[in-house]
């Protein structure tokens, strides 16, 4: 009799489809979860909903024409996309960018990094159920966006960089306003700490959740805060300094065990470090030209170049092969979000469905970057 009743109570595994329209997938990502009740047995990310074929488009555009397309890759960090593309083409052309342009590039990039991290911070808190930090983050981001708008005329897809420099010089009051922003922003990060980072519920939700060991992170090619959260102090800005980063002093925050909380703390600290960089750049900003002498038609000699930078989401690379014409023969984008996302199935096995969001949010992907 007893055995019968035990057999009557059969549990089933089921598939749960998260996305492509789901409030927590931040874009059009589809996650297929194999579940046993609330526990996750397996997760398969289904990509490609935002695939626009940029690598192929590049082969049909001249070097200068392709620049605005790069903005749409990681659309939260347009400046970085511009930067890495310009670096790659400049390597092909063997152009040296004037120092003022380099400093302006770093300045707007770091501002953009803060903005991008804020867009991660708010929704991450929202995934965990705290709605207020979301609005706080966007309040501060608005000021950065205004600053970047005054420089480039755009609020999201900047296209501000040019091959050999930047499009135009900084507006007159930019330095004053950027300094004011830095002063305003520093206490705000502490406010986020009091609101969220030190909240016991938040810590319970993220500590020891989604632990990414050092070796696994390296094996999967993770980079950026995901890698640094696991305790690897690897940052392209330090390890292979580009632009003027070797003249600036800043720290690389690293985590210890690589859980969601570590990745969170790394990003929060990075915002502080970015403010530090911005302040130094504002002090050191040299005068002079903002554009190098670049030919009207960009026709690099046959060859290839790979440029990489530290984008907010990690190691961002462009590989360009030139056949001597005015269009790239082949262009390959190394997107940090793609590699970082690939590690997600490893992290969530055996966790609860609520933890998927704590892990997924802490990885911080942008679908434009994943799908390209």
């Amino acid at each position: 009799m007893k055995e019968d009743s035990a057999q009557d109570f059969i549990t089933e595994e089921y598939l749960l489809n998260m996305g492509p329209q789901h409030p927590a997938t931040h874009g059009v990502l589809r996650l297929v979860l194999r579940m046993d009740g609330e526990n996750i047995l397996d997760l398969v990310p289904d990509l490609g909903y935002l695939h626009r074929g940029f690598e192929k488009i590049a082969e049909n555009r001249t070097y200068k024409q392709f620049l605005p397309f790069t903005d749409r890759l990681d659309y939260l960090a347009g400046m970085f996309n511009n930067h890495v593309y310009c670096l790659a083409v400049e390597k092909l052309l063997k152009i040296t960018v004037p120092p003022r342009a380099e400093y302006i590039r770093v300045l707007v990039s770091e501002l953009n990094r803060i903005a991008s991290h804020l867009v991660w911070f708010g929704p991450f808190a929202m995934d965990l159920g705290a709605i207020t930090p979301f609005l706080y983050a966007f309040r501060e981001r608005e000021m950065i966006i205004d600053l970047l708008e005054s420089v480039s005329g755009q609020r999201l897809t900047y296209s501000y960089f040019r091959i050999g420099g930047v499009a135009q010089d900084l507006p007159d009051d930019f330095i004053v306003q950027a300094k004011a922003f830095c002063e305003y922003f520093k206490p705000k990060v502490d406010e986020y700490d009091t609101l969220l980072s030190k909240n016991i519920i938040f810590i319970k939700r993220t500590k020891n959740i989604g632990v990414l060991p050092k070796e696994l992170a390296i094996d999967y090619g993770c980079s950026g805060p995901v890698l640094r959260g696991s305790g690897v102090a690897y940052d392209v800005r330090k390890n292979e300094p580009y632009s003027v980063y070797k003249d600036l002093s800043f720290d690389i925050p690293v985590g210890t065990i690589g859980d969601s909380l570590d990745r969170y703390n790394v990003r929060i600290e990075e915002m502080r470090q970015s403010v530090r960089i911005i302040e130094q750049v504002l002090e050191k900003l040299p005068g002079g030209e903002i554009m190098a002498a670049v030919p009207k038609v960009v026709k690099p000699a046959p060859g290839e170049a790979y440029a990489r930078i530290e984008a907010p989401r990690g190691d961002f690379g462009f590989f360009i092969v030139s056949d001597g014409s005015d269009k790239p023969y082949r262009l390959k984008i190394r997107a940090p979000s793609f590699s970082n996302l690939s590690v997600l199935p490893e992290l969530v096995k055996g966790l609860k469905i609520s933890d998927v969001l704590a892990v997924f949010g802490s990885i911080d992907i942008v679908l434009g970057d994943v799908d390209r």
Partner: protein
Amino acid sequence: MITVCVSYMFNLVSLFDLISNLLLNVWMNIGLPVILFELIKKFVVAGVMFGLLSVTVMFLIWLERRICARFQSRVGPNRVGFQGFLQPVADAIKLLAKENIVPQDADRLVHFLAPPIVFTAAFTAYLCMPFGPGLIALDINLGILYIFSITTLGVMGILLAGWGSNNKYSLLGGMRSVAQIVSYEIPLILSVLGVVMLTNTLKITEIVDAQKSFFDWFIFRQPLAFIIYLIAGTAELNRTPFDIPEAESELTGGYHTEYSGIRFSMFFLAEFTNMFMVSAIATSIFLGGWHGFGFLPPYVWFFVKCFAVVFLLIWFRWTFPRMRFDQLMDLGWKALTPLAFVNIFLTGIMIFIK
């Protein structure tokens, strides 16, 4: 004249009696049976209470939206009516005009029944809630027990909603909700039990009467119970940090994902009605009910205290992140329930010593 008006303001019961007697006289003169009058009177009272509650809930929705807007450095709704007072009305009209979508392959009957159950459970609980001296629809001996049992009935509606929607997210939400409400019902009732032991009654009016002066409020004599009650009450309401059944970022809304139009608004109204209920119980049992500090009518004091508790709940919601399901269960079973038992034990010792 003014003094009479003021005295009636302070004593609504005599005003109601006055009106009722006047009407009864007219009724008798026409020559209709008294029993019919009593029946109609009951319906009118129920209607008035329902209307009053609906207005309170509407105000509550407005209040929550405005307060949370302030927390988030926004302005909040301020266009419809004075300072946006009519925003909930506009929202309600919008919801009424919307289509009632029933998902394909849903269990139609279950899907249909769920919202009215939740809604009715939320509103009928007020039957035994004293808003002021004598301002109670039905003063039964088991008042507290009645309220807790009726509010718990709402969970059945939530489960039905989760099951009937034929949606995995809804089902997960419904299951979570049942587990949560059933587990938190225990510390909730146990926390109130300490007060019941002190007053020797389950009748809410008598409990309120036991707290006439400020220092008699049970929040001072039963502080632990009040904290347990507040936490368990928040969990009962499915509000952040315990809004796990809804968890919009995980379950896209949980059990009411598949509801739209008026049925959704029933869930929505029930949620806010329950929220006011939790504050009303807290007020009656721990904060002295309608007993105030003079100069305002008792029922105004009652509402003032209720909204103070409501403010606390709103504050919780817009500050904290959400807990995870197993952590929530741990908190309920491993922390709150034992603590509630400790509280009862201590109360027992206190009574024994006295």
